[in-house]
Structure formats: structure tokens, C-alpha cells
């Protein structure tokens, strides 16, 4: 009997263990994915292997009206040839989903405020902010307002059908991309609104500005006088705008209303809003893109040469997906953003275009007037109006549902609590249903007139669009909605009571623009696009325009003697010369020449004396320069920041401070800023010598006595993280040249921001070249996950082929898509 009981107990225990194992393996523990489902060799993560293999030669694509051919070249770039325009966009949607579905889903979740649903509580505050900023509300309105006859509507609908065809196929074959399986969720069907959302997300990254909030914090701590001096409207250093303005500097400076220190509760609102915005408008911090064109008088081929390298956050997979599209209405080649049915940067048979971020101020803040006697209301144009309240339910992984209420005023969403209420009016809060029609119009344009006509519908983010064509013309234009206010200073939060509201925008005919300039060269590298005579306020130095060193360096290269070719364009894109260093080095060396230096410091000085300003990874003068510059900036501004208790780090506003320091060092070496508060008087040379000595000490402590061993690449690295934040699927960090001010931009340590796509178009030969860091596929097992990275790192461009040439490549694979 006892033996029977023992064995029954053993059986029971075994069954319990088996059941437990099945439960853990199949259901997971807490929010961790189920290991057996994850590692199931047929249906789990391993499906990334067969998915990475070559596509079948024929594919059934529901919704196609006619047979469509897709030729994948050796880089995995699809060359689509369709007999109908809608088939072209259907195929594009299918291809995007085939190669980038997880990325697309992540983008739309981020924009819609639904990241917490897959990532849990850590993403909740991001979701709440996104819901407040309202990309999804804007996208819904844009889609609703898009006319039934609009080409964009037809394109988005066909594109959506293509994406959903691929999602259904993936689900039916259990081959959803690996990260869906790793995170344990499935994508819901794509909707047209999702494609509209991506435009808002781009605007948020490129054009959301915090400058007015930072200005308030600076006014309050640094003082209004110093803030006005150190963060002026116009840059104090030498820059090269590409467009001339109209007339009337007075008009430009009209907003210079005497800044007053806001009340404590308003300060609190600003601090609250700033604290919520660490991740938006990231481009403003590292803002860097280059684009230029030269006409036939400067090029070896006798026709324009155009180059563009937009600098964005670098990830694997990249934000870009390269395509070549051909149908009755379109013949275009370039890069798309997965989720959007348009070529953002590229060329067609007659024109080419590129973009840099204008960074003009298009974000306004309004301090809404509230009163305890009027709960849930704000005062506008003499009338108490109710806040519009929109309740949201946010699914949070493992936590149930979180509730959030967004409040909206006539100006836009409120970023702060009940009182005081700070509302924001920004570019993606204004529906712009014409954005896709503008981009489709650019894709079809055949000359400057049709190109600029297409851009009339463009609202934002405001971009500098570089243009070149086969007729020999070059141009640059920055269209979009530049808000013009009735009164007040838009560089600070404005009163929300109505008198300082937006009353219009700069007319299209007066936006920054240049066409076939007399010096035959056009450059945009995020510098202020217009000179001091431009009659409209488009932003100041704080949190807006680039300090202009890249533009100056590029211009100096383009204006050098000799005719330019594709190789020169490639070389300039890889240029690591820091113009700030070139400008200031003589002053630094002069100051050091009369200073008492130690033997080690003197060796470092001599190294700098023979330096050409190139921030190469192997360069020791580059390491000395950058360490010196950081020390110089810190020695001048940190004492002021500490003494005045400035609540944001000076590094957060270092662009205007860099411009100031350059200008003072060269032209105003006795500026009072060099003397720290309460300390003995100091001038620029004194501050430079002290900073240099400190830098040499720092490098010696870090890298030893041998100056040849102080390499910039030991201090500075580049990394390309995986979009899914899986360390092993990213790249780097590796030693890297360049810095935030060089044309081959690499700001930050490690730098995770930089040339996201390098393109050169030569209208003399009719050829184009491009490269981006990564590869076409988000599948880490694919040949095309990061097969372009090596060429990108070494600066080689790959030919952007038309379909016929691509099909002749030995590695080409042609797939026929049938209805």
C-alpha cells in the first residue's frame, strides 16, 4: 500500500512538473515571452532564416490590376515596373512591409502613443506626451480632408492594401518579423491614417522646438540682459546664408519686446513642460544635414552636380528604404521612409532634389490665462472658453489600462497641469493634408516651375529643398508655414488671451529661395538661410539654426579652383575639417606663444601648429583641439551657470554659446563674459591658455605622456544602435573621426547621429549615387541587414540604377507579382 502511495505521489509530482514546464514554455513568465514559442524552430524566431533567403520568382499580390515586375539588385534595392500607378504604390506597400514591417509598426506606435502596450510602464510617459502633442488627431483630420480626387489619396489607399497583403501573408505563414515574436505581439492592419502619421513623426523630430521654454529659464536665471546678449536673433559669427532677403532689418527685430521675468507659477509651468520634452525635437540638438548644388560652369560634366546627406538618428535598420519606381505617371529613384508611399529624396528623369532641415522657429507656446473662479476654462479674446478634454485609455503591458486626459485650447494642446496652463502651437498640430500631394508632385516635376508649384502645398516641417535639373538649373527653396504673430515676442511663451495669436504665414513668394545664383553654387547646411535684411522673424540663435561651420567649409571646398566631379562631392561629404578650429587656431596659438608652458604643453602646442583642422580619428591635434574647446567653453560659461543657478546645462544651448565664443575670441577678447562672476578680470587669451593647460593635463592623465598616442578616435566613437534596442544587433561603438561641426557630422559621444543617406546626382553623365548606413532588410539574418554599412563607413557610394541596368547585374533577382 505504502509503495503504491509513493508511486502515485511520484506520478502526481511528475505530472505537476510537466504541466509547469508546458505552462512556462508555452505561456511565459510575467511579461517575458514564452521560450518554446520563441525558439520553436519552425514558427519562432528562427523563421528569420528562411525569410532572409531569396524571394520566390512569382508572387500573388491581391489587389494588383496588372502584372508588375520587381527586380532586386545586388544591394536588395527593388526596381519596380508597373503598368498602372496604383499597382506601383500597392507593390511599394508590399515591399515596405516585406522588409520593414516592425519598423513601420514601431513608428506608428510611437506616433499614436501606443508604445506602452508592447514595452510596458516605462513607455507610458512617452505615450501620454504623444497623445497630448496630438499626431494621431492631426493625421485623422488630414486623411478626412484629403480630397477624393487627390493623387495622394489613391496612392495611400493602394499602398495600404499592399502593406496589408504582406501582413496577411506573414500571419498565414507564421513569418512575422522576428521582433514581433520577441515582443510577443502581432501588428494590427495598416490604415491610411498610419501613413499620414509618419509625416507628423518626422515633423516632431525635425521641427519641434523648445527654445522659447529654454529662453524663459535663461531669462529667469541668467538675467534678461545677458540672455539677450548671448542668445541674439542674428548669429554673431560669420555665416553664409543662401538666400537674400527683402528689406528692413527693423521688421526682423520687431519681436524684441523687453523680456520680463514670468511669475513663479508660469516658471513652474515652463519647467514642467521642459521636463516632459526630453526626447522630442532631438534633431535640434544634433541638427546637421548638408545639401548643395553647383551648376555647369563649376562641374566637369558641364551640367549641375547635386549632393545631399541628411543627418538623422542612425539606427539598424535605417529610417531610409531605397527604391526605383516606374509606372505611367512616375519614374523616380531615391529613398522612401517605410510607411510612406513617396520618394522623399531622389531624382527622376529630369530633376533631382534633396533636403536639409531649415530649423526655422515654427513652435509657439501660449501661457493660457486661467482663474479658480472659472474652473476648466481659459480666457481668450475676452471670453472664458472651456478646455476641450479628450480622454484616452492607454493599454500598458502587464499593467492593464492607464487613463489620460488631453486638454486643448485654441492654440493647441496643453503640456502642463490645471493651472497654469501652457499650450503649444506647433507644425504637426496643424493638419496639412497636402503633404503627400506635394511630394508626389515633386516626384513628377520636370523643371523648377513644376517643382516649386508642387511645394506650394507644403506646410512642414520646413525644409531647405535643394534642386538641380538636366537643363542646367540649380535652386534652393524653403517653403512651409512660418507662423507670423499679431504681436509679442515669439521667442518666449506668448500670452494666450488672443492679442498675440498667429495671423498668417510668410507668403510663398517671400520664403527663403535662390535660383541659378550668380556665383553658381548653393549650399544649405542648416545655417540661417537668409541674411540680416530678411523682413520676417524666422527664429533666433537659441535652439534653431546651425552655427554655420559646415556650410562655410562646404562652400570653401566648392569655390576652390578647378572643375568638380562626383569624386569631389564624395570627398566633401566625408570632409572632417572643423571650420571653428580653422578660424580660432591662430588666436589660440598666438595666446600660447606668449604663455609659460610646460615641455608637455609646448609639445601639444607644436602639434596644433602644424594641424589642418581635420578631425580624423587618428589625429592627435584633433584630440587636443576638441579637449581644449570643451574646456574653453566650460571655463567661460560654467562659472556663470553656477553663479546664476541656471537650471539647464549650458551644453543644451551650446550652439549659440559656440557662436558667441568664436565671435568674442576673434573680435571682442575683453568681453566681460570672460571674467567669471566675482573673479579677477580675464580676457580671451587668458581663458584659452588656462583651458589649453587643463586639456593637456586631462589628455596626459587619460592617454599617457606620448602625444602621438592621443588620438581623436580614442575619445570619440560612432555607434549605430538597433532600432529594437538589442545591443547585439547594432553596430559599434568604434573609433570615429568628425565632430558636430564637420560636414561628415558626428556629434555626441558616442555619436549616434549622422549622414543617414549620402546622395550625389551628376546631370552631366545622367548618373546618380547613394549609400546609407545599414541595409534594405530589418531581418538580422538577411544579407541586406547591414550590407551597405562597410561602403558607408569608407565613404563609397553605390550607383542608383534604373530598372534596366539593375536587371543586368549578375546578382539581380527578378520577381513577377501577379494579380
Amino acid at each position, binding site marked *: 500500500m505504502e509503495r503504491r502511495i509513493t508511486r502515485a505521489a511520484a*506520478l502526481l509530482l*511528475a505530472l505537476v512538473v510537466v504541466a509547469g514546464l508546458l505552462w512556462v514554455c508555452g505561456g511565459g513568465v510575467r511579461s517575458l515571452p514564452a521560450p518554446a514559442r520563441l*525558439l520553436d*524552430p519552425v514558427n519562432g524566431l*528562427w523563421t528569420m532564416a528562411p525569410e532572409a533567403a531569396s524571394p520566390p520568382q512569382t508572387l500573388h499580390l491581391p489587389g494588383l490590376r496588372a502584372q508588375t515586375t520587381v527586380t532586386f539588385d545586388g544591394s536588395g534595392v527593388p526596381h519596380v515596373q508597373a503598368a498602372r500607378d496604383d499597382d506601383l504604390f500597392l507593390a511599394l506597400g508590399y515591399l515596405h512591409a516585406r522588409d520593414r514591417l516592425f519598423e513601420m509598426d514601431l513608428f506608428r506606435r510611437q506616433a499614436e502613443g501606443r508604445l506602452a502596450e508592447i514595452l510596458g510602464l516605462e513607455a507610458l510617459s512617452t505615450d501620454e506626451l504623444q497623445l497630448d502633442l496630438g499626431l494621431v488627431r492631426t493625421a485623422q483630420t488630414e486623411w478626412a480632408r484629403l480630397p477624393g480626387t487627390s493623387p495622394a489619396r489613391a496612392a495611400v489607399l493602394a499602398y495600404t492594401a499592399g502593406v496589408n497583403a504582406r501582413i496577411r501573408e506573414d500571419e498565414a505563414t507564421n513569418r512575422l518579423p*522576428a521582433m514581433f515574436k520577441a515582443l510577443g505581439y502581432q501588428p494590427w492592419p495598416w490604415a491610411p491614417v498610419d501613413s499620414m502619421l509618419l509625416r507628423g513623426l518626422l515633423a516632431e523630430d525635425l521641427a519641434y522646438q523648445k527654445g522659447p521654454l529654454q529662453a524663459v529659464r535663461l531669462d529667469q536665471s541668467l538675467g534678461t540682459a545677458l540672455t539677450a546678449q548671448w542668445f541674439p536673433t542674428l548669429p554673431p559669427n560669420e555665416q553664409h546664408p543662401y538666400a537674400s532677403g527683402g528689406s528692413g532689418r527693423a521688421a526682423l527685430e520687431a519681436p524684441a519686446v523687453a523680456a520680463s521675468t514670468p511669475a513663479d507659477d508660469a516658471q513652474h509651468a515652463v519647467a514642467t513642460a521642459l521636463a516632459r520634452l526630453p526626447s522630442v525635437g532631438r534633431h535640434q540638438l544634433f541638427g546637421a544635414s548638408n545639401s548643395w548644388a553647383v551648376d555647369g560652369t563649376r562641374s566637369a560634366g558641364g551640367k549641375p552636380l547635386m549632393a545631399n546627406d541628411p543627418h538623422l538618428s542612425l539606427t539598424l535598420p535605417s529610417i531610409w528604404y531605397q527604391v526605383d519606381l516606374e509606372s505611367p505617371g512616375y519614374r523616380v529613384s531615391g529613398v522612401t521612409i517605410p510607411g510612406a508611399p513617396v520618394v522623399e529624396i531622389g531624382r527622376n528623369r529630369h530633376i533631382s532634389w534633396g533636403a536639409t532641415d531649415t530649423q526655422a522657429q515654427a513652435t509657439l507656446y501660449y501661457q493660457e490665462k486661467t482663474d479658480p473662479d472659472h474652473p476648466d476654462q481659459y480666457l481668450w479674446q475676452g471670453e472664458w472658453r472651456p478646455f476641450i478634454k479628450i480622454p484616452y485609455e492607454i493599454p500598458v503591458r502587464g499593467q492593464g489600462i492607464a487613463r489620460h486626459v488631453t486638454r486643448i485650447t485654441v492654440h493647441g494642446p496643453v503640456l502642463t497641469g490645471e493651472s497654469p496652463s501652457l499650450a503649444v502651437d506647433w507644425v504637426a498640430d496643424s493638419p496639412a493634408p497636402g503633404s503627400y500631394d506635394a511630394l508626389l508632385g515633386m516626384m513628377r516635376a520636370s523643371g523648377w516651375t513644376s517643382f516649386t508649384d508642387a511645394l506650394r502645398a507644403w506646410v512642414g516641417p520646413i525644409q531647405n529643398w535643394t534642386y538641380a535639373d538636366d537643363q542646367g538649373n540649380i535652386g534652393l527653396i524653403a517653403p512651409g508655414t512660418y507662423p507670423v504673430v499679431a504681436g509679442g515676442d515669439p521667442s518666449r511663451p506668448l500670452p494666450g488671451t488672443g492679442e498675440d495669436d498667429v495671423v498668417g504665414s510668410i507668403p510663398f513668394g517671400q520664403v527663403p529661395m535662390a535660383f541659378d545664383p550668380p556665383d553658381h553654387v548653393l549650399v544649405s547646411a542648416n545655417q540661417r538661410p537668409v541674411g540680416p535684411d530678411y523682413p520676417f522673424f524666422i527664429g533666433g540663435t537659441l535652439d534653431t539654426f546651425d552655427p554655420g561651420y559646415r556650410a562655410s567649409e562646404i562652400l570653401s571646398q566648392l569655390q576652390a579652383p578647378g572643375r568638380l566631379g562626383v569624386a569631389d562631392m564624395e570627398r566633401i561629404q566625408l570632409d572632417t575639417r572643423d571650420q571653428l578650429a580653422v578660424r580660432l587656431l591662430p588666436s589660440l596659438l598666438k595666446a600660447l606663444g606668449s604663455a609659460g608652458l610646460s615641455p608637455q604643453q609646448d609639445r601639444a602646442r607644436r602639434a596644433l601648429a602644424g594641424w589642418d583642422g581635420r578631425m580624423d580619428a587618428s589625429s592627435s591635434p584633433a584630440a587636443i583641439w576638441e579637449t581644449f574647446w570643451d574646456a574653453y567653453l566650460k571655463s567661460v560659461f560654467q562659472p556663470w551657470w553656477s553663479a546664476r543657478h541656471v537650471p539647464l546645462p549650458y551644453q543644451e544651448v551650446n550652439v549659440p554659446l559656440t557662436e558667441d565664443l568664436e565671435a568674442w575670441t576673434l573680435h571682442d577678447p575683453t568681453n566681460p563674459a570672460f571674467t567669471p562672476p566675482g573673479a579677477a578680470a580675464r580676457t580671451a587669451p587668458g581663458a584659452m591658455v588656462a583651458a589649453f593647460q587643463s586639456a593637456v593635463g586631462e589628455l596626459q592623465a587619460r592617454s599617457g605622456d606620448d602625444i602621438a598616442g592621443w588620438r581623436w578616435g580614442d575619445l570619440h566613437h560612432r555607434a549605430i544602435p538597433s532600432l529594437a534596442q538589442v545591443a*547585439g544587433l547594432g553596430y559599434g561603438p568604434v573609433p570615429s573621426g568628425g565632430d558636430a561641426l564637420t560636414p561628415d557630422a558626428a556629434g555626441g559621444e558616442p555619436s549616434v547621429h549622422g549622414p543617414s543617406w549620402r546622395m550625389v546626382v551628376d546631370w552631366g553623365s545622367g548618373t546618380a549615387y547613394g549609400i546609407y548606413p545599414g541595409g534594405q532588410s530589418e531581418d538580422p539574418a538577411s544579407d541586406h541587414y547591414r550590407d551597405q554599412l562597410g561602403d558607408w563607413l569608407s565613404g563609397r557610394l553605390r550607383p542608383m540604377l534604373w530598372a534596366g541596368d539593375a536587371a543586368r547585374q549578375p546578382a539581380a533577382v527578378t520577381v513577377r507579382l501577379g494579380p
Partner: protein
Amino acid sequence: VSPLRGWPALAALLAAGTIVALTLLAGDWWVAAPAGFILGILTRGLLAPVLAGAAGLLGWGIPLAAMAMQAPVGRAAVAIGAILGAPDPLRGAVAVVLTLLIGALLGLAGSWAGVSLRRLSEVQERG
């Protein structure tokens, strides 16, 4: 039923492994456990867990081996190892070992229950 040994046991192992592999195609990842259970009933002593573990391992290994003939399983293994957080040089190995381990564990656990059931029934027959 007389316990399996020798060639019949080997045949049972191959059959069980094949069944586990085929049912994975249908999404039934759990079949290694009942397969192990049956092998536990049909075999004696150490042979039971060895056969059951091997059947699970085989069942989960066959699809990987078949996939490797036409797809980049090595790169997939490295990527899966990265997703699982394995350190760099071991990523691929960790992914493969963990995958096979799950199949083997399911088979082993199933065999434990099978052996336990057989032992209980033996006591009841005698008693």
C-alpha cells in the same frame, strides 16, 4: 507490453523524433512532452529518459538542419542569441543549444511522467 530495447527502441526514437518535427510544422511545439511520456511507458531504466530526451532534441533539431540547407541559419542563430542577450562570441551557440534544450527538456519531463505511470501500474498489477 514488454519493454523496448535494441533496434525497436532506436526505431521508436526515430519515429518519435520525426513526429515531433512534423507536428512543429503545425505549430504544436508541445508534442515532445507526450512523445517522451509514451517512450517512458514503453522503455525501462535509463533508456527511457535517454530516448525521450533524444527524441525531443531530434524533433527540434531536424527542422533546424533542414532549414540550414537553404537559409542562413548561422546568421539567424547569432541574431537570436543577441535578442536573448547572450555575449558576443557565444550568441549562435547559445541560440542553438537553448532551442535543442527545450525539445530535450520537454521529452525528458514527459518521460518522467510516463515512467512514473508505468511504475504505478506495475505495483497495482502485483498488488
